[in-house]
């Protein structure tokens, strides 16, 4: 049975079909709400699926294979220099994206979620206009995401890319400069470096992957450097000159001088899209940075309007948006729900990967929380060495009184996958003893977690 939308009314209307928006719409439909999902794109999935997480992972996988193959020469196994067919690689990436987005279209059909293509803006607190057509709603979820920040004063030039352009894989520039050493910038550096670009990263802060554990970030820094990527920290681009043969970036700081690049990627962060939806018409306050503030139940100042995902501010991560999406759908359906956690894991899918959750020692110091840390170096991990893994570290941050885990950082191959055990452990209130006494399979990289805990407890026999 189809719902009728004769009057353009939705019990539940979701603005934006990214990972938060579609999860929210699907959950609402599963809870019995007549649901409409609105997005300007022809396909569902938002930035994450179409031009973010997923396509970047496809390219990072290629980078990983190229890198692994070249490293096998140390093992006496030689490969020819890879030939790269950019069109085919792009097609492969597109086909992965298409299979996922069409899967989502199928899921929404099965749930009888009506998908409307268009851009929604508020008319009042119960009405939005979608490409000229008015829709009324009982409850609405704002999940309009974020967009890459363009550096002010930079010229318009098609050799200056944002992350979306970079993922289009137009060409492999022989000299590529990335402004911004955060997760996105570092992932792009990993991809293009493996594909053959000479990559330089310019980062304003004192470390790459701001917010991550300093020691782990330093290990990643060294690994990227030894793979041929040049990283300038404490360095700012002070002027940009678009010459015909190259783009000249004048830098100041730890590196002072001019970088000549064939292409430049701006990866200096993302800005919430809250200012693009005429939210004032619904009586909503939007902060100057585009963020719409919500409580833990994702409610805005209007009781029937929720907001989730990047538009609600940092951390702008898909998995946070998805959880918020479920919360908003459940609260709108009359259930009690909240995203009642600070434990949103961060992962840089670089080579090696860098992943962290909870408190880092630096954050603990800032917040006046007394913590201790323990770590296990991957140089002592049999599985890591036997798999050709490079340097790595598993670090745990814990409360010295109770031994309760408060944070974890891992740098090394597959760190993003390894982290989940620790997110669960921290959520469950696990102590060092809990982790150490849990039998981890040998030989695995996951063992390093138990080893780090044992090290703090004085029970480690592997160091």
């Amino acid at each position, binding site marked *: 049975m189809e719902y009728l939308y004769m009057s353009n009314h939705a019990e539940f209307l979701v603005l934006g079909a990214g990972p938060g928006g579609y999860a929210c719409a699907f959950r609402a439909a599963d809870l019995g709400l007549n649901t409409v999902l609105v997005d300007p794109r022809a396909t569902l999935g938002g930035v994450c699926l179409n031009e973010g997480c997923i396509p970047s992972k496809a390219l990072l996988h290629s980078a990983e294979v190229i890198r692994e193959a070249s490293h096998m020469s140390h093992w006496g196994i030689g490969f020819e220099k890879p030939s790269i067919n950019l069109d085919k690689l792009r097609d492969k990436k597109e086909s992965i994206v298409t299979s996922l987005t069409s899967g989502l279209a199928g899921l929404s059909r099965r749930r009888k979620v009506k998908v409307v293509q268009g851009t929604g803006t508020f008319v009042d607190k119960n009405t939005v206009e979608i490409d000229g057509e008015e829709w009324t709603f009982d409850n609405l979820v704002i999940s309009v995401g974020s967009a890459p920040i363009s550096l002010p004063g930079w010229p318009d030039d098609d050799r200056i890319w944002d992350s979306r352009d970079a993922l289009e894989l137009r060409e492999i520039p022989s000299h590529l400069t990335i402004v911004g050493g955060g997760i996105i910038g570092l992932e792009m550096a990993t991809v293009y470096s493996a594909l053959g670009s000479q990559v330089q990263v310019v980062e304003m802060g004192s470390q790459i992957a701001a917010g991550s554990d300093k020691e782990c970030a330093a290990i990643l820094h060294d690994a990227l450097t030894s793979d041929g990527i040049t990283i300038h920290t404490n360095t700012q681009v002070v002027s940009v000159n678009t010459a015909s043969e190259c783009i000249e970036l004048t830098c100041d700081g730890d590196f002072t001088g001019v970088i000549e690049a064939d292409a430049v990627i701006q990866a200096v962060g993302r800005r919430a899209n809250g200012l693009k939806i005429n939210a004032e018409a619904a009586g909503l306050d939007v902060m100057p940075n585009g963020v719409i503030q919500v409580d833990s139940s994702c409610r805005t100042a209007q009781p029937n309007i929720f907001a989730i995902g990047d538009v609600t501010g940092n951390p702008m991560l898909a998995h946070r948006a998805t959880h918020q999406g479920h919360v908003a759908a459940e609260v709108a359906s009359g*259930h*009690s*729900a*909240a995203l*009642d*956690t600070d434990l949103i894991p961060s992962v840089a899918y670089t080579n090696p990967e860098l992943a962290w959750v909870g408190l880092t020692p630096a954050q603990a110091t800032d*917040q006046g*929380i007394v913590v201790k840390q323990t770590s296990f170096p991957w140089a002592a991990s049999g599985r890591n060495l036997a798999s050709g893994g490079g340097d790595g570290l598993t670090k745990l941050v814990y*409360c010295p009184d*109770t031994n*309760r885990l*408060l944070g974890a950082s891992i740098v090394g191959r597959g760190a993003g996958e390894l982290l989940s055990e620790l997110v669960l452990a921290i*959520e*469950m*209130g696990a102590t060092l003893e809990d982790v150490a006494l849990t039998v981890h399979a040998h030989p695995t990289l996951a063992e390093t977690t138990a080893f780090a805990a044992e090290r703090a407890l004085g029970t480690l026999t592997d160091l």
Partner: protein
Amino acid sequence: MKNHSASPSVRAKALELSIDLEKLAADLDKRQITLDDLSPKQNTGRSQVADSLSYWDVDHSLYGDVQIQATSKIDRVASDNLSAANTVIPQVTHQDHADITAIEALRGQFKLEAKKRGVKLTGLAFYVKALAHTLKKFQKFNASLSADGQTLFLKEYVHIGIAVDTEHGLMVPVIRNVDKKGLFTIAAEIIELANKAKSRKLSADDMGGASMTISNLGGIGGTGFTPIVNPPEVAILGITRTETRPFWDGEAFVPTKFAPLDLSYDHRVINGADAARFLAELTHVLKDPRQLLV
């Protein structure tokens, strides 16, 4: 950073049940809250009382709206104590009433003195003093049994516990060395300890080690009740509301003020005749407080 931890599913359930986990953790004095802690029926300690918890395992919401409230730490301590007392101690309650005409008269005479000292001389102060006097004469009542029942400890001191009803639950502060203190001192200490109990400021030193406990419901009402002995003590004195009754003095009926007294005792230590004699002595002293001097 929170002092307690609870897994995501426990936090979700707590939200659903509108349970404040921070408060629950403090009440339960627990660092880690589990799903079991959210349902009162799972509270520990009850299994000692009943072989089966099934009598309490009822979904009350089937019969109407129900509010869910975690029991407080104080409630649970009292609950464990009372359950143990009622399960372990064979208790008997002996009843009598005391003519308190003389005490009431004395209170009237001391009114000015009390005002001078800034103390309210309550009836309870007299009961405490009279009980101490009686305990000195009947040492078996000022005793405790060892856990294995093999040894009786006879106490050389006289400390009296006062059951205090507070909004946090029942508490029993103890007045030390009552036999060596005057009425005004006792009255002042009762007030001080009751106030401390009400503001949750009782220290460990203020409680425990009593010879006997008094549970005074006189200010509230009732004609009698069966108080439960507060272990490891062997007896407890209950008092209910004073009544004016006709008393035959041999020639005529005289309106007389009587306080009903209920003495519950541990029958393992005290037998019925002892209890009757004890209460007879106590009513005698209350009727003629001059006995306190001899």
